[in-house]
């Protein structure tokens, strides 16, 4: 007997009401919850980087390169849960060979490749090019070879070249902002365009996904910046943190409003699915939706940040509050993805019953693999941070006396 089946016999006993017989198996599981979370962080981190280059919010400059590296480390991990989850991973590349033009999932593959190659990698390359050349000259052995390779063997650090680099970065960022919106908005569309599922089918889905992505991205960069400063025993740039917290606050207000709008809209229209969806929330999603997503992940961080700013907390307390807020926010956004993906499959399309989801600990799609995938971006980021330190840029800029603020 298939180990997957053993799970299903247990769930069969936990079914409430009537579900179509095939619905007993939950198809998009924890791995598919992780995926929108990861791409959300990518989009959010990139938008944060764009704040510096396009919107000229200079206070967050210290996190500029960190945002880009964060986006890249999360982006390379993003396809992993998808490939692992496929029934036939070895055929995964078919999406690029015979994509169906009507399928959002197929088109997303190209958006991903575009974003990785034409936006993120290019921007990072142009921004780091000068430093890569300088490091190549300084280092020896393997590192020297790596830097030379990554700088594509260029050695031009003239003013003209550097000016071109800067212009390139700005242009790519401008193109990158809608690309980042497309990257994660598309994931929202993949869910939002399914008319068969009333929990997912919504015009607001791509927009809500996008804003919760920005919340998670800004939060993640804040988190890594604070942890990085702690580990390196360096001082935090408080102006930067304050600005980040402000942006986080604004994004959370927008996200909260969107979710509130969705809720009011559903309750007011009171379509046929309202009964089973209410039952879904009260019986299966109460803790994850009401307690974690709303209370812990949204309301408490909003209140804490508002208090921290308006009551003018001392810096120590502020740093601690922001740190806790960011942790709660990340938990909240991850749970938001859970509520969307898993929640949408817990109720029957007959609108007459609920099923259950059991996470297995081991196995290819189990908890351990999921935790490993979630940990991987941080490991990759650590390697990036060691190889391409994002911190020196600010100092370097001031040393060399370039036009960098």
């Amino acid at each position: 007997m298939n180990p997957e089946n053993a799970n299903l016999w247990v769930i069969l006993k936990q079914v409430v009401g009537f579900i179509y017989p095939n619905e007993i198996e939950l198809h998009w599981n924890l791995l598919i919850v992780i995926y929108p979370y990861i791409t959300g962080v990518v989009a959010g981190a990139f938008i944060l980087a764009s704040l510096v280059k396009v919107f000229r919010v200079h206070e967050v400059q210290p996190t500029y390169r960190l945002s880009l590296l964060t986006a890249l480390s999360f982006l390379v991990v993003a396809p992993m849960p998808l490939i692992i989850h496929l029934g036939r991973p070895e055929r995964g590349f078919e999406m690029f060979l015979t994509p169906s033009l009507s399928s959002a999932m197929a088109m997303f593959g190209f958006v991903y490749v575009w974003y990785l190659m034409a936006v993120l990698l290019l921007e990072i390359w142009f921004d780091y090019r000068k430093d890569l050349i300088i490091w190549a000259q300084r280092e020896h052995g393997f590192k020297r070879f790596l830097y030379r390779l990554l700088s594509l063997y260029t050695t031009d650090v003239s003013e003209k070249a550097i000016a071109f680099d800067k212009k390139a970065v700005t242009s790519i960022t401008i193109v990158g902002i809608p690309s980042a919106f497309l990257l994660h908005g598309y994931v929202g569309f993949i869910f939002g365009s399914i008319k068969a599922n009333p929990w997912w089918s919504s015009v607001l889905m791509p927009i809500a996904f996008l804003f919760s992505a920005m919340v998670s991205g800004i939060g993640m960069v804040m988190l890594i910046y604070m942890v990085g400063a702690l580990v390196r025993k360096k001082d935090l740039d408080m102006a930067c943190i304050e600005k980040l917290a402000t942006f986080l606050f604004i994004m959370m207000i927008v996200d909260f409003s969107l979710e509130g709008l969705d809720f009011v809209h559903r309750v007011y229209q009171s379509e046929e699915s309202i009964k089973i969806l209410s039952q879904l929330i009260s019986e299966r999603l109460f803790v994850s939706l009401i307690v974690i997503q709303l209370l812990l992940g949204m309301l408490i961080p909003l209140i804490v940040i508002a208090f921290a700013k308006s009551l003018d907390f001392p810096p120590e307390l502020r740093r601690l509050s922001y740190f806790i807020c960011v942790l709660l926010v990340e938990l909240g956004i991850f749970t938001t993805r859970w509520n969307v993906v898993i929640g949408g499959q817990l109720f029957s399309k007959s609108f007459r019953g609920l099923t259950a989801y059991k996470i297995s600990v081991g196995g290819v799609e189990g908890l351990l693999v999921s935790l490993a995938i979630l940990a991987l971006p941080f490991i990759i980021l650590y390697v990036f941070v060691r190889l391409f330190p994002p911190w020196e840029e600010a100092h370097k800029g001031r040393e060399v006396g370039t036009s960098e603020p």
Partner: protein
Amino acid sequence: MKRSKHEADPGRRRFCKMLLLGSCSLVVPSVLEGVTKGTKEGSSWYGTTYKPKEHLYGMGIHVDRCIGCGRCVDACKKENDVPYQPFYFRTWIERYAIGEDREVTVDSPNGGIESFRGQQPEKRMLKNFFVPKICNQCDKPPCVQVCPVGATYKTDDGVILVDTEWCIGCRYCIQACPYGMRFINPKTRTADKCTFCYHRIVKGLVPACVEVCPTQARVFGDLKAKASPINQFVRTNKIAVLKQNLNTEPKVFYAELDMEVR
């Protein structure tokens, strides 16, 4: 300065050209396939005289004739080698029990494969009936729309099939089907669903479920044929389809369908 730039230039240009050509080569396989397939008018269908474009298959279901015996569910699993566990069904029977207070209870124990013996609902009844469910073979199938690799498709004779050699098992089609008709076959780990017994109907037989139904509750035929059981069914009954508001244009028609059926 100018010279060094010139020297680096051809290298960069060549690199970019190679990159562009390399990414374009990704589409070569599909272009080649399209060119070599060459389906011309008048060419035979896999060497037979069967002409798919001349047929359009549909099914009719008399709800008031179904006795819930489950022979259809059993025959389908036996004909199509579907795993016998209660998680994988290409067709199933639902029992509706509508009480005098108009409260509805629906059940489908193991899809109805061993009938519904020994499980009677406990309340005063207004109406009770059985409803067979099967893939609706929609004319506007949402499952085909979302398949990323085109592994599921609509044939010229109106049947929605899955190419199990090409399906990657992403499960998007399962999410998109409003009727819950698709599942993942645990043996092939690809999407699976009712095929209207395609291997039978192209040879002039009827699907296995239609073959064994003891009360002829299931009616199968060619919607394009002038004289066919399905056209007689559509003509003489007031028919309904499931979830009409989703505009999937199902080709499975129900006679005497109660409003409580989803």
